[in-house]
């Protein structure tokens, strides 16, 4: 069955093939298994998102994916953090899909007023199709951090979708790092409902071989003085294809809102395909929005500088590619994960 996911909120020319991402998904998808580690937070398994009132919201991958998710029998792992509770130790979730597995997982994350939580999810293995649906609600002055690391093997196919809303002064920080193989679709839809709520997305990727990465981020600014920052930085090699869609949507009334999105892409081989689609939609006068993109290979100046120091070109490429990912890894607010990513030979 074919599914259209990651739809651009406002379509453009069809010949560019960026209006959505079409993926084939299997008829039967089982419940994924994963390890979840937390000592401070109560987890609950519920039948559906409706049980935790998160059925009606918009999600990053879009409605077609949402209806697949809602029909799927996988249970929802519901995380609730009580008012005024700051959870120090992150919840750690580890997926290791077995070969050719078709599996689905769902998480509902609710933060009550003035609570804080970090969730770190590691995806590994070799799913033929993997789907993950995270929905969140962040209440007043609560702060949620989600870190996702995707490290699949070759021929994997995966769709990750995030969606939810932020109340007054609430914040979501999302870090996504795609460092493995396979075709991966990432998405996040954030409704900045409350005044002064903030969204901060920081994404790094490496796409190789004939793999595809498809990204769709939407920041819907409704509240006054809301702020969104979307940053993506990555490397394309071989015949890889990547599409980045980022939309900052200022709804009328979102006075003093600010939004900014940046993507920088390093292209390393002749066969790469890059699409960068940074939208700003604006129905409010009193806002500041900006977007920027830099796409290209390493500049001759940098190459020359390195060469003058005795470093050959191919090594410069490797260095630059690695340092792009390392820079994102280095910003992950968790020592354990950082060490795991940066401590290598």
């Amino acid at each position: 069955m074919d599914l259209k996911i990651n739809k651009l909120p406002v379509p453009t020319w069809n010949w560019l093939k960026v209006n959505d991402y079409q993926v084939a998904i299997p008829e039967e998808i089982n419940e994924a298994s994963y390890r979840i580690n937390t000592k401070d937070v109560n987890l609950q398994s519920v039948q559906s998102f409706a049980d935790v009132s998160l059925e009606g919201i918009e999600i990053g991958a879009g409605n077609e994916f949402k209806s697949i998710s809602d029909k799927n029998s996988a249970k929802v792992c519901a995380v609730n953090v009580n008012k005024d509770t700051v959870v120090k130790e992150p919840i750690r979730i580890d997926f290791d899909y077995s070969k050719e597995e078709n599996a689905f997982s769902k998480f509902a994350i609710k933060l009550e007023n003035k609570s804080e939580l970090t969730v770190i999810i590691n995806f590994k293995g070799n799913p033929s199709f993997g789907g993950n649906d995270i929905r969140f609600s962040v209440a007043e002055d609560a702060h949620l951090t989600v870190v996702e690391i995707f490290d699949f093997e070759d021929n994997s196919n995966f769709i990750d979708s995030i969606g939810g809303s932020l109340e007054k002064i609430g914040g979501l920080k999302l870090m996504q790092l795609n460092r493995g193989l396979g075709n991966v679709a990432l998405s996040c839809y954030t409704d900045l409902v409350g005044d002064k709520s903030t969204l901060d997305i920081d994404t790094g990727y490496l796409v190789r071989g004939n793999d595809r990465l498809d990204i769709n981020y939407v920041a819907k600014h409704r509240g006054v003085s809301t702020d969104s920052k979307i940053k993506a930085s990555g490397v394309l090699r071989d015949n890889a294809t990547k599409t980045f869609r980022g939309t900052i949507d200022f709804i009328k009334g979102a006075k003093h809102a600010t939004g900014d999105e940046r993507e920088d892409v390093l292209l390393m081989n002749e066969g790469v395909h890059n699409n960068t689609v940074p939208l700003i939609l604006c129905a409010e006068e009193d806002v500041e929005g900006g977007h920027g993109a830099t796409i290209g290979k390493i500049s001759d100046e940098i190459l020359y500088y390195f060469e003058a120091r005795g470093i050959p070109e191919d090594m410069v490429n490797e260095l630059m590619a690695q340092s792009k990912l390392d820079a994102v890894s280095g910003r992950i607010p968790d020592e354990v994960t950082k060490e795991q990513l940066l401590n290598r030979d």
Partner: protein
Amino acid sequence: MEKKEKTYVEDVDRSLYDFRNVDEDVYKVEEGLTPEIVKQISKEKNDPEWMTEFRLKSLEIYNNKPMSNWGPPIDGLDIDNIVTYVKPKNNKMSADWNEVPEDIKSTFEKLGIPQAERESLAGVGAQYDSELVYHNVREEVAAQGVIYTDLESAMHGEYADMIKEHFMKLITPDDHKFAALHGAVWSGGSFVYVPPGVSVEIPLQSYFRLNAPGAGQFEHTLIIVDEGADLHFIEGCSAPKYNVANLHAGAVELFVGKNAKLRYSTIENWSKNMYNLNTKRAVVEEGGTMEWVSGSFGSHTSYLYPMTILKGDDSKVEFTGITFAGEGQDLDTGLKVVHVGERTLSTVNTKSISKSGGISTFRSAVVIGPKAKGAKSAVDCSSLMLDDISRSDTIPVMEVNCDDADVGHEAKIGRISDEAIFYLMSRGISEEDARAMIVSGFADNVSKELPLEYAVEMNNLIRIEMVGSIG
């Protein structure tokens, strides 16, 4: 004082563009679109056989193509109500203004065309509804071998083969529904050929005036600038306002030869009942340069994205544009650039302004092809919101299929800062003038690119739009 100025401005607005002539004794085809109407237009035009076939084929494509699923709504446009061909009475194209029928001549006089021709243009073409009424080029320019004439007579003359070779090869009827419509019912427009090495020092201009209510204008402009030649072409358009929808679906095909240079400037000020679904495209050979200067002020709805194909190595394009969307306007404008050749270069600088409920959308596509090694593209777009009932969207796409490319994009959206207004007010400038000054300054990069009299016209348009916008 303020009131007086508002009245004055409205007067300027009406007298400048909004006068209409009663269309009596004109020849029109029936409203709507059928093979019979297309055949009738073709007969009226004395088309060569291939053109009649081309028209009918285009109509078929038109009937089979869906409307686009993106862009502003065009529900208000019902092609069955549009008259696709309107010929002015006693029409005979002339190279002498004295032979142009009096009411039409006075129309162009009010628009300042004959005067501009005397002062600063190398040649002028003037189209009224579906037909050209005037075409003339200065002797010294003609002596250089420059051809500037109406496309239809050129099709029967010395350049027949050249036209057949280029006509709708760049914009084909398959491109989109309105390109197909154009192919079926096109009428009027200019043909320009600049021979190798010839540099036309002062600009040529075509002016398109649509007078008939409920009519469409489908002129076709074909410009070939041969190797090493240089041309500046100016296009102006306007129409009086009617309560029924008018349609403009012209096509502009530009061929820029090796090391040649073409600048194409447009100040579009269609009336606010116009659906402007125009298609413009240029292909640039090795070392050639294409420059677009585009000001969009008028029309009810616009879909306008001049496209440049940088085919030859080291070819380049510069695009400078401004869009001003006021009350009731939905202007979707931008550009497309396809880098094919090596070391091709695109530089884009656009501004858009939204006011009084107007919607402006900047839409772009920059495509770097797999063989465009060393290609560079820099896009800079800024949007200004003048109130909170308007809308401004930015929808750029950058597709890069070559590693050896350098693509940059910057966009900003915001409003006029209170600090800037206060600073100007503290020097004795009224708030209204301060805003107009800042908006003119915002648009300055475009007006700088225009010949003086057009820059003045553009600043007038901005003033007309700005004054009375406060309070």
